[in-house]
């Protein structure tokens, strides 16, 4: 009897509820990069009220949403918490973005409204801020292999996330705000959980990260599975380079520089505006590059 061909079992959480900024592109990236290599995959969607078999999942996706959707997701996630936590402790691979990232942390305290309790898988807390961080981000990641990867995407969040000692940052911000606009960190990592603020969506633009997730998921279930076959990633490289360039325009660099200054002990914060949107408008006038 021949063994069943390797299959990546993808669990796609809240496809309707947490899906605000094209994040389903992450799913498309995983599916296509499997398909192009002839690797089988299955996708299980689990929305509100459905508890999927997390023990049977190799790769779990938990995406972003706005505050209201996030509140609903938090309420429902409580019912999924036990088996999800077990899967994470058993090294299931998880990609989580924005609100999903905040939900895997300890809590999210929005500027108006009650505190939303998270799963506490990540040693991170999130505080709502007076302004939104909106713009392209460039970061540098080292996932333990010693090799530096460039990460890029688009952030749009008002939450400031602060990591505790139990979580590592996913990367160091080169341009943009990242976790909180202060300490230069972007995202978080714990076991095989990869958390980020980056939309874009993040996986199509950063195929190295998509492949990293796939190979970790495959290696966990199929220890003999070799390295992934390389793909022609010319289009991805162009999109990555363009986004990276946009992030490193003066506005993005200025923000990263301001954060760097505040890191060395001189708190230099953007002037707090009574109306959080003033900042967005101010930025608009700078967005005239072609």
């Amino acid at each position, binding site marked *: 009897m021949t063994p069943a061909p390797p299959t990546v079992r993808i669990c796609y959480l809240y496809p309707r509820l947490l899906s605000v900024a094209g*994040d*389903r592109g992450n799913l498309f*990236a995983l599916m296509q990069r499997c398909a192009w290599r002839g690797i089988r995959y299955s996708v299980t969607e689990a929305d509100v009220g459905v508890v999927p078999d997390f023990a049977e999942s190799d790769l779990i996706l938990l995406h972003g949403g706005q505050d*209201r959707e996030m509140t609903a997701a938090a309420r429902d996630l409580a019912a999924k918490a036990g088996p999800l936590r077990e899967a994470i402790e058993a090294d299931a691979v998880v990609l989580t973005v924005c609100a999903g990232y905040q939900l895997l942390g300890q809590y999210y305290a929005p500027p108006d409204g009650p505190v939303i309790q998270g799963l506490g898988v990540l040693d991170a807390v999130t505080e709502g801020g007076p302004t*939104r961080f909106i713009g*392209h981000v460039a970061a540098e990641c080292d996932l333990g292999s010693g090799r530096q990867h460039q990460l890029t995407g688009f952030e749009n969040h008002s939450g400031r996330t602060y990591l505790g000692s139990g979580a590592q940052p996913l990367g160091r911000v080169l341009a943009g705000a990242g976790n909180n606009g202060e300490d230069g960190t972007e995202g978080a990592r714990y076991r095989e959980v990869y958390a980020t603020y980056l939309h*874009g969506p993040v996986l199509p633009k950063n195929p190295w990260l998509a492949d990293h997730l796939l190979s970790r998921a495959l290696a966990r279930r199929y220890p003999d599975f070799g390295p992934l076959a390389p793909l022609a990633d010319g*289009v991805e490289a*162009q999109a990555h380079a363009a986004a990276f360039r946009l992030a490193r325009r003066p506005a993005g660099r200025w923000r990263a520089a301001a954060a760097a200054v505040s890191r060395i002990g001189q708190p230099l914060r953007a002037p707090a505006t009574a109306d959080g949107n003033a900042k967005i408008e101010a930025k608009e*006038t700078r967005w005239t590059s072609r």
Partner: protein
Amino acid sequence: MRTVASRPPARPRERSPRISPSEQARFTLALAGGKAAGTASRVLRFGGGTSFPGTVALRIDPRFLQKAAAASDARKVVVTGSNGKTTTCRMLAALAHAGGLMVTQNRTGSNLLQGVTSAVMRGIDLRGRMDTQLLLLEVDEATLRSVTPEVRPDTFLVTNIFRDQLDRFGELYSMARWLEAVIEALPASATVVLNGDDPLVASLAPGAPARRLYFGIRADGAGSQVPEHAADTIRCVRCQHLLSYRVVHLSHLGDYQCPGCGNARPGLDVAVTAVRPLSDAGSEITVETPAGTFQLHVPLAGLHNVYNAAAALAGGMALSLPRSLEPAEARQAISGLRPAFGRLEEIRAGERQVVLAFVKNPTSYNATLREILPRPGPKHVLAVHSNTVVDGEDFAWLWDVELEQLVPELASLVISGTRADEVALRFKYAGARPAVTQVLPDRTAALDAALTGTPPGEPLYILAGYTPMRELRSIMQRRGWVPPSWKE
């Protein structure tokens, strides 16, 4: 509209506070400067003068718009929302015109502060007097907060709220809060016209003093039971419970009810009760209003244009027209409309056919695809997006567009714009074959390549964001294929 015409037409108007001579002088100077700028830009052909005059006038007098609006006795209508602003305004203008009103409007879709100011300027003479009786403005959601307090509209119309340029607006709900602030500030004499089928729009500022009018579709045949992927407001705005829909017409628009708290679609004042799609891509609709039942021929394709017609009719009811509008006149006004430029606009490009479609968010893109896909033949497509102040920086929303449905039909694909890289990435993951795909960021080169790749007799579909749509249109205008946009 007859019932509305019976309202006293002359409402007491608050006189504008007298302004000081120096403020008046500044206004006059701004007006002269703006008008000169408009003439110059037309003569020197550096654009249609749709926003440059406003830029100049506001430079000279930052309070220009406020002063110009206050000095005018015209009725003022502001139309906002994510989609359908331009078409709704065109329909409303046609209805108002048929009802005897001269209209000043920002017709070319320039709905930022400068464009609105330019439109107002075109409507007034050098002494600052407006000889039209209706000032009809479509205003971008983000500009709303700066424009509305200056213009002080009598009627405020919200078409819908879809996710659109979240990089510019932050969240959907922050946008909703801006709209609520505007509606709450309207006086009791004003009317707010709302899409009753949009759960978020219908529940905006429920305690505001202004009179409310709801429009929507109450025809069972049109629609499905499940919101599409890109649907936004599928939760109750009051209690967050998942909404249940008796019928979904478009994205999250439909007949909804909340099983949690009982919040439901409000009673519709202007209700489309029947929609019959026609072979010429338009539809024949029946609309029930307090002023009677209208049979309208909507010459523009798609259910979204049925919504636009209902919105325009409701807006027409909110205005007190000088004379009541007969159903036949309303019918004639609407059926004579051509698509706004770039709204599935059919263009003869020499030997070839071009269909120009302006797409700016998942809802408008999906609505366009729904119109294009059933048309016969393989699809030749030019897809163009650029990052600009108007078009935004974040194109992640392309991943919420159902491009997977278009890709199997593609015979040729040219990708262009300053963000051609993003568009190419999206199409690659949607399955577009490299053999049929070309990436040419330059717009002229892309248009030529796309036309070359399209055999005579088959249409080239251009799917473009706002700025590249304007660019491509002006290239085609220089070639004599389309009239200038400001002459429309």
